């Protein structure tokens, strides 16, 4: 376990480290212990082990010289990155740096103009046919996306379904899991994220932090090998950020491979194995959190961090 440096601001420390913040922002008391997420035991976890084992030895994500344009603007200029199984990567950078776009390219929500992205050894979004690279069929892309979970900045919960129905929707429709089994797993996941009693609520009756936790449970219901977090806490009130970061930390401790785009530097310091700094479509710097936050070598990193921290 690496040395944990003291978080730079006390409010950050309180937010992500405390188990005391309830979903409505008030402080928890002893009596609330049963309604919080249970400590991790062997039999119940957010992460299913067979999903994350995959092909040992092959990196979970391998991006090679990825280029992407939106019209005439080049957003990604030769991004290359390797993510090993179980690694937690945090990508930081100013807005417009392409970090969200790169994340979306990993599960082919955005198409790339050149370069390759491999997830668990599989080429993403394209296939080789007679020596040519052509776009893959929608069915194959959907199948690949089912193994990658994504959590969005704006939650994107389905408003016409309850929390429970949101979580069972994908497993029943895509994986064809029998409904009873899906409901049982969904209740388990909602309990793990601390929302067991909100299972029958519609999203408009939930707070932002609760919605985001349901969104995380929904992504986990598909037993993904890899989780992508696109600024998952940026749209939340400061008081609600802590509960979501707690779930993300729990996921990290259970061994999920995570790529997180965030502005929460405290979380990055605490959880990340590697921090990557992007600016204007390029990776400028990457390294261990201590190295990046304490001794940034690139001057752009320095100026960015001086504004944030």
């Amino acid at each position, binding site marked *: 376990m690496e040395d944990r440096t003291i978080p730079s601001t006390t409010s950050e420390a309180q937010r992500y480290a405390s188990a005391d913040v309830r979903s409505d922002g008030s402080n928890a008391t002893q009596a609330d212990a049963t309604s919080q997420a249970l400590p991790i035991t062997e039999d119940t976890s957010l992460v299913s082990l067979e999903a994350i084992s995959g092909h040992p030895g092959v990196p979970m994500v391998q991006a090679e010289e990825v280029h992407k344009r939106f019209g005439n603007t080049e957003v990604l200029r030769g991004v290359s990155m390797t993510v090993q199984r179980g690694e937690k990567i945090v990508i930081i950078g100013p807005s417009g740096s392409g970090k969200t776009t790169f994340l979306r390219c990993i*599960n082919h*929500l955005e198409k790339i103009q050149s370069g390759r992205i491999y997830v668990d050894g599989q080429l993403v979004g394209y*296939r080789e*046919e007679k020596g040519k690279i*052509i776009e893959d*069929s*929608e*069915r*194959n892309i*959907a*199948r690949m*996306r*089912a*193994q*990658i*979970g*994504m959590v*969005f900045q*704006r939650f*994107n*919960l*389905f*408003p*016409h379904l309850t929390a429970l129905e949101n979580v069972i*929707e*994908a497993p029943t*429709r*895509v*994986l064809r899991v029998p409904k009873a089994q899906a409901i049982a797993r969904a209740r388990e996941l909602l309990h793990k994220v601390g929302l067991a009693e909100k299972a029958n609520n*519609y999203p*408009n*009756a939930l707070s932002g932090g609760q919605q985001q936790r349901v*969104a995380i449970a*929904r*992504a986990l219901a*598909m037993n993904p090998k890899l989780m992508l977090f696109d600024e998952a806490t940026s749209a939340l009130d400061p008081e609600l950020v802590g509960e979501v970061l707690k779930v993300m930390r729990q996921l990290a401790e259970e061994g999920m491979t995570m790529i997180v785009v965030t502005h929460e530097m405290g979380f990055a310091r605490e959880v990340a194995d590697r921090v990557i700094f992007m600016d204007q479509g390029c990776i400028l710097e990457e390294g261990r959190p201590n190295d990046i936050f304490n001794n940034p070598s690139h001057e752009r990193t320095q100026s960015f961090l001086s504004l944030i921290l």
Partner: protein
Amino acid sequence: MDFFQHIWNFFAPFFTQIWDFLVYIFTLHGNFDWRIAGKYLFNPYILQGVWLTLRLAILAQATGTLIGLFLALFKDPRFVITAAPPFDRIFKGLLLPLRLFADFYIWLFRGTPLLVQLIIIFNVLPFFYITLDPFTTAFLGLSLNEGAYMAEIIRAGISSVDSGQMEAAKSLGMTYGQAMRRIVLPQAFRVIIPPLGNEFNSMMKNTSLASVIALLELFGTAEQFAASQFAELELYFVACVWYLALTTIWGQVQKWLERAFSASKQVKMMQPPWWQRMTGIRSRPAVAA
């Protein structure tokens, strides 16, 4: 004299003239024979016409909505048929032709009058050795026309759904078709209901055009009786009463539908009684002594 007295003095001659005119019209002294109107109001043929109108309107609206749904999807650039290779590339090549077809169809059927469309279908099909009875011809013409208008309505409904919904569905591994059917269209439906209600209202009235192709719906039947009885005014009045009945009832159904699909599915609010809702009169609390 006060202000209102002045007004009354000025307009009184007109008021009495109008009143005399109305009395003349609406009693047996005038050109309107109320007894005929009353006699035909519940005439079995008229009632059959009403029933036919309703059936035709419902069928044509349903089919038109279906056609409109497909046209809206054809125009969506994300419309992709899920298939395994090599069929996926074949279907991808269809995207542009489908979109052009949809544009052409909508332009054609919105650009020509419904009456003209019905007459053309009625007169042209026999040349292709297709003979259809008037009901089917009317159904065909009304559906095709309605499809063009519903396409735009449904497209607006679909685009009102946040794009994040489709992205979330896709990121969970759903195909475009699954995401549309389970996530996007149910939410689009909520937005589509008010204009759809409007369209059905128009549809019920547009069925009257089928009378020119010899369909005995409500207006056609009324016309027949009007001709045989030499009582146009009375019979058209009867037809209007029935059209009003249909559209008024539909108005209430539409209101109920909008409420049933309303966005907030919270606890049902306690509502004031119907007579209070209609008149807005609320009982005042007793004045404290």
